[in-house]
């Protein structure tokens, strides 16, 4: 029972981690919370569904295509809704409210286009369950965990070993200094939004496949929980988001299994509030000091 719950938790946690990466990368560079990220995740899920449903493309073409479209949407959101405000030099509240506006817009746009009902996901992969020593494990579950880990390793390598990753890290330290070093920071920011959105799209497709459901408001709860995961790990830190995602998934599943299912969502928010109160920099984050 315990091990079963643990595995279920890791599966959900991997998905949280993928979404959390988008939050943490954007926060690392721009120091803003991209409220719309949860809804980009929802759009990603729908893109995967639509492309797999309406076209006869095999999933290894349809899903990357969905990722590409979602990435473009993410870049567009930054371009249209954040950049003008950022370049005005307006305060953080303005960007935050704009992000909230994007989130409301996307949620209601999706409800209008796809209806409020829950859509069954296209099952391109035959679901088979294995039973190992009393623990049920489906191939989709294994796939989710493996894919999450692979994507995280790739992202970690990109951020730490490539030139683009170096530019990203430089930009996150100081946008002005990075510009002085000849880095095209706007390009870096656009890329960050693109990569984050593509990862969110993968998470959307995985949730769709794992739970066999997408609906327009899915981004709200998942986005919040992923944000909680990002905070738990230390926002701005890429390994922190991964750790936070897995931890949150495990805690939530165990809490729902052993304490109460009605309050399932409250565990994530409870953790979020506790972490923010007692260790705002998170588990792996750097201490932040306000300087004049």
């Amino acid at each position, binding site marked *: 029972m315990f091990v079963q719950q643990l595995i279920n938790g890791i599966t959900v946690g991997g998905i949280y981690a993928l979404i959390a990466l988008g939050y943490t990368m954007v926060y690392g560079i721009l120091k803003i919370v991209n409220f719309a990220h949860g809804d980009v995740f929802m759009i990603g899920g729908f893109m995967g569904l639509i492309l797999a449903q309406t076209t006869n493309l095999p999933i290894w073409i349809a899903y990357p295509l969905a990722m590409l479209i979602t990435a473009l949407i993410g870049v567009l959101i930054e371009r249209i809704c954040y950049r003008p405000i950022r370049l005005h030099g307006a*305060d953080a509240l303005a960007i935050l*409210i704009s992000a909230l506006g994007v989130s409301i817009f996307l*949620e209601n746009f999706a409800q209008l286009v796809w209806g409020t009902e829950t859509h069954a996901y296209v099952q391109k992969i035959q679901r088979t369950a294995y039973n190992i020593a009393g623990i049920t494990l489906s191939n989709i579950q294994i796939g989710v965990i493996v894919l999450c880990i692979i994507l995280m390793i790739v992202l970690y390598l990109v951020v730490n070993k490539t030139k683009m990753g170096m530019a990203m890290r430089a930009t996150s330290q100081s946008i002005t200094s990075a510009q002085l070093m000849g880095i095209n920071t706007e390009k870096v920011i656009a890329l960050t939004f693109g990569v984050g959105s593509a990862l969110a799209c993968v998470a959307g497709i995985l949730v769709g496949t794992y739970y066999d459901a997408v609906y327009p408001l899915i981004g709200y709860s998942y986005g919040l929980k992923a944000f909680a995961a990002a905070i738990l790990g230390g926002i701005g830190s890429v390994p922190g988001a991964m750790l936070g995602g897995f931890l949150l998934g495990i805690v939530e599943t165990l809490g729902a299994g052993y304490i109460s299912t009605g309050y399932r969502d409250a565990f994530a*928010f409870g953790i979020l509030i506790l972490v923010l109160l007692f260790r705002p920099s998170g588990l792996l984050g750097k201490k932040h000091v306000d300087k004049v």
Partner: protein
Amino acid sequence: MMQKIKKIKKPLAVIGILFLLLFPVIITSSYYLHVMILAGIYVVLSLSLNLITGYTGQLCLGHAAFFGIGAYAGALLMVNVHMNFFFALICSFIISGIFGLLLGIPALRLRGDYLAIVTLGFGEIVHLVFVNWTELTNGPMGIRSIPGPSLFGIELDGNQEFYYLILIITALVLFLLNRLVNSGFGMAMQTIKADEIAAESIGIYPVKYKLIAFILSSGLAGLAGCFYASYISYISPTTFVYNTSVTILAMVVLGGLGSLTGSVIGGVVLTLLPEVLRSISDYRMIFFGALMIIMMIFKPEGFWGVSKRVKNIYKIKAGGAQNERDYESR
């Protein structure tokens, strides 16, 4: 130009007040009265949120939770203890304020976006409690047959009475907040909004001001909640959700952050608009979202925000010039 506005301002205000006072007499349709009462409730909510978000600069995304706490507190007191509406109103103000204090003490040490998330999480948790604590809140079924107000044995539960009640409450709240934000206390709040570190450097302790603003804000939202519960006479958790918080925030933002007039206009317009344009009510939230983005890009101060600030500067300048002229003529 400014003089012209000043000249017509007073007659306009008089006409406006007369219109509001005579509204139930002029327009007898109970539907319009109902919409106006709702608008009154939302004006109180947006005014209270403006205190914390507009004047103190702390984004709160859980305002519906305080609205809900007030509504549930008021409803339970009126239904279970048979408390008089007016006492329940005060009690829900206090209870909501206490919850504001409990959330505020730890949360207000956080910066903007973190606070937004914590209040959002708080709103979610409160909603979950409303749904799951069935012994107290009756769960998703909600609380039914909440009595209307009565004073000295006279029942005041007609729509007209409710209209005048909310009119009085709104006027009182508006008056008090107007006094508050134009006082030294209000100046301190606005300094914190402009720059927290600078505020600290001149001896303003931000946490204290934020906390008081937060308690007042949540208390007023609770008051509106109690009124709502008594007016609709039925409450359920579905009213006190994230969307309500966002709607209230949209009213504040579109009306103008840091402007009481803006909040009143935002509250009235955004309540009336979906009612007037029934045909597009499906698109209401999309419209709000898009409007929030456009507003932040082109006019971050809201419709009413900037003109207010400009007027203030003019006032100071005009006052200065007046003194100079006085000096010269002497």
